[in-house]
């Protein structure tokens, strides 16, 4: 039983049990609010009966020309509601908005190279490892830049993997 709707400020006061999970980062307020102020369609929450927060996704749309794309900044599901394909639903929603409303070429995301369960999940959702970003996480751990092409990228040019890893300063966007 799931209601997916736009994330609102009050949800910040309700996502405690999702964010106490050690893999979910609690960002500062201006980070959340900048996303809400700029890309409200890319920030969705999913609720269970009793208005419990099950999980949420936040992202944005950015880039120029053929690199105009949707980006997943965070997607998280509370342990209580895992194994119900909720992350998939949230990801599909963001992909849909990037595809149909903003007409992006692809959706991308970063994941810790060591986070095998997450990498596997993204692969199941159709993402491929596009390139490795050396020491992306606090200058220590490598990040993987994963991508999924959208309908506008007819020839799927955006998801041809790069051969060599890059450094964070070579990234086009943060």
């Amino acid at each position, binding site marked *: 039983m799931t209601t997916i709707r736009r994330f609102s400020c009050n949800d*910040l006061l309700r996502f*405690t049990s999702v964010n106490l999970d*050690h893999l979910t980062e609690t960002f500062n*307020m201006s980070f959340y609010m900048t996303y809400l102020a700029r890309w409200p369609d890319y920030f969705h929450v999913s609720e269970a009966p009793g208005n419990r927060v099950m999980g949420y996704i936040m992202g944005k749309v950015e880039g120029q020309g053929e690199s105009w794309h949707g980006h997943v900044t965070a997607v998280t599901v509370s342990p209580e509601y895992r194994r*119900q394909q909720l992350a998939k639903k949230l990801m599909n929603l963001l992909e849909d908005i990037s595809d149909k409303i903003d007409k992006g070429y692809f959706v991308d995301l970063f994941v810790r190279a060591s986070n095998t369960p997450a990498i596997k999940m993204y692969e199941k959702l159709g993402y491929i490892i596009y390139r490795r970003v050396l020491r992306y996480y606090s200058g220590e751990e490598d990040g993987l830049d994963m991508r999924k092409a959208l309908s506008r990228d007819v020839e799927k040019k955006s998801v041809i993997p790069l051969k060599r890893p890059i450094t964070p300063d070579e990234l086009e966007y943060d």
Partner: protein
Amino acid sequence: MASKFGLAGGIPERRVRPIWDAVDSRQFKNALKLVTSLLSKYPKSPYALALKALVCERMGKTDEALSVCLEAKELLYKDDSSLMDDLTLSTLQIVLQRLDHLDLATSCYAHACGKFPNNLELMMGLFNCYVREYSFVRQQQTAIKMYKLAGEERFLLWAVCSIQLQVLCDKSGEKLLLLAEGLIKKHIASHSMHEPEALMVYISLLEQQSKYNDALEVLSGDLGSLLMIEVDKLRIQGRLLARANDYSAAIDVYKKILELSPDDWECFLHYLGCLLEDDSIWKYFDNIDQIHPTKLIECKFSHLTEEMFDSRISSASDLVQKLQRDTENTNLRGPYLAELEIEKRKLLYGKKNDNKLLESLLQYFLKFGHLACYASDVEACLQVLAPHKKVELVGMLVKNSDSVSASATKVLGQTTTILKVQELTGNIFELPLDEIEASAVTLAKLYCQNLPLSKDLDPQESMFGEELLSLISNMLVQLFWRTRDFGYLAEAIMVLELGLTIRGHVWQYKILLLHIYSYIGALPLAFERYKALDVKNILTETVSHHILRQMLESPMWVDLSSLLNDYLKFMDDHLRESADLTFLAYRHRNYSKVIEFVLFKQRLQHSNQYQAARVEASLLQLKQNANSIEEEERILENLKSGVQLVELSNDIGSKTLRFNEDMQTRPWWTPCPEKNYLLGPFEEISYCPKENVNQDREENVKRAIQKKCLLPRIIYLSIQCSSTALKESVETNGSGSDLKICGELKLLLEEYAKLLGSSLSDAVDMITQISQGARSSESLGSDLMDWLNFAVFWNAWSLSSHEHWHMLDLLFEKLIQERIRSIGSSKMSSCYSDVQVLVQIITEPLAWHGLIIQSCTRSSLPSGKKKKKTQHSDHLASSPMSQAIKDSVQSLCSTLQEVSNWLLSQMNNPEVDQLERFLSTLKRNDDAGGGPGQVLAVLESFIASSEESEVGNRIFEALKSWNTADAARKTVMAQERVLREFLQICESKRKLLETLKQQMSHI
């Protein structure tokens, strides 16, 4: 800033950029050098001055920064038009905002806009100023001017948002909404509308005026195509129809949504609401503040005849069955949970269908019982069942759980679910002790048996059966409550600590542990567990309630101070930056977020915890420095002698406080910070639903904050009053200013007594009777500390009365001794609450009394070395008041000595003995059969026999590293540390009093 570079006030970019670069890289000295040289070339450039002000402010030279800003402002106001540009003004604004002089920035922009009435950039700057000031009327006026100038849709919407904010926040008349509607209509007629967010604002504007049909017309017209997500559009349509009481049309819309997304719970509730013509669900729609989980949905049926009800419900059942068929292979919970909701409504209506509801709950269990969310999914259904039906349900679930054919993970999931249901229904409180014990042991075995399932899991992933340890610990706490056998608590600690050793990421264990540690006085460990939760940013608002109260009542001042400061910093930062983010939403045309941000900022500003933390931070400083009256006076001066806090106290009375804490994560036995069942005798409680604690809290919390807010001012006035009291007691005429001070003190004491629910004279009677033993101190209830404070300051107001001094001495002596006696007679577990009270008495009322004595003696001491003892001082020495002070000092010294002695007696036990005592509570007495230690025995024997091949290397290593004695040692050491910190405080107070005694003898 980079994009703004150009010619600013005639300065070329190449000269300016290095200054910004230096500022950005925090090389302020270098920046200052550069800006000084720039100013030598352009001494009359407001922009160069603004840059200098910026650098000065960053270097902490705030006075200089402000005066440079004023200099720049003066130049801007001179009639030299070429100097007036947005870059200069916005730079000035940055500095002035940081200096808390937003008004100056606004007047600069207002002046600029007056000079160049057609400059859109400057007007935007001015609009931004009003956003920062939350001046919605001026925002509206400015936006309208911009709209008239440029004719752009966004400026019109800025104006409309400003109007909506006036209605929502300033409670301005709703006529304004009509004006906004007119503006939009006119705009649409000439320019149409182009942004989906603009359409949303238009609809919300109509909705705010209950013009649902007008809104529907807009939505179904051409503009409706602006909303690209079909479901979103349908949701709005359904809501508008329902609110317009056009239920049959709404039902069709909701059906459509359910066909598109059959798992949409909220939509199903709306569908059912429309079907039953029940509008209660919309009651909260405009009240967008709802953040606490709704437990029981209010239902209204009275208007429906039975026949109507039956036919409506049966059409709902038809739809649900269809949805179930359509989604048969998808594993969606929605259509099945909908069936439960229908049965629940029937029961609430008065149908005798409880057996059918049980049957549906069972079916839902068979399908989804292995999922971790079963219990919370059905919580609302459990609430409506009669107690014996709840028992029956648990029985049915046990009987039908699949123990043969299903996979191990499924069995584990189902078993865990049954226990969670049992917890939710409160059934567990009715079971006999040995059954609970046996159940806990079974769970421990189950946990061990299932550890191999997690063998190959990534350490990041949740393990199978993790919840079992939380459930066991809840049972053990209940056993403790019922038997008062400390061993059960010790065992709960061990179970959870072992759980953390196996997987350190389980936050539920950390929260349970922090509460148990707090209860038994092992606060340093509690705080450690709290820190391990990595609570930061917005979580400080929602999660710190777990630890804050215990810390406030503890002697761990350093940790408390960092806790309060981190929290206040987060809140203050947000309150400061929120307006900038609101402006960002304006700029990106996300108007609905504009309204949301403003309301959210208000919500945090009125947070009860924030208001309390502000005054507590001040009180903490006063507590920490109470041994030195000079330090205390410095702090009071920084607090503006407490005047602002008194104003806050008055303000809070009329304001609504917000409760943003997430109480759901608290253990059952302490559902809110003010409540701890373990402190009282065992009673059956049903914690389904966990009561909505916030409703009762508001008045109490408000009064508590109001009382605390008065304290700094009362302390300040008491010090003033007492500084001349001794002299006056031998002289006849007091000065006029003293009368004024004493008058204010008396007023505040009246106010304080009123907050205690009493008149001044009744309050005095109360403390007098208690000191004389005519009344028991229990009649002070949980306000004990406030009454003692009252007694202290009452004495400060009437120092010349020997009886008052004596009464106060007796009061301290009596209350402190009572606590020491109570500790002596209780077992090791429950004594900490008494220690907590002692800590508070000594660090608050007694400390304030110490200050008053310091103030009295200071004024009576000869002020210079050369002055010899005079006849005057002889008078002082022999005056009744001087004698009263001496007696008081003597009495406090010996009372404090008693506390110290008790503390020393506790700490003198060698660590080994204390450890032994702790561990002995866990030792099983085999002859007696039951008792604590059984669960731990299961876990320990599993550890001893486990093999690496079975549980995998990681878990194996964790198990082998476990040592019960180590965990016990940490606990007793933490308990001792609290006592040590407390002892230090007592000793420092006693030393102070000894010094005062010495000084008094020289008078």
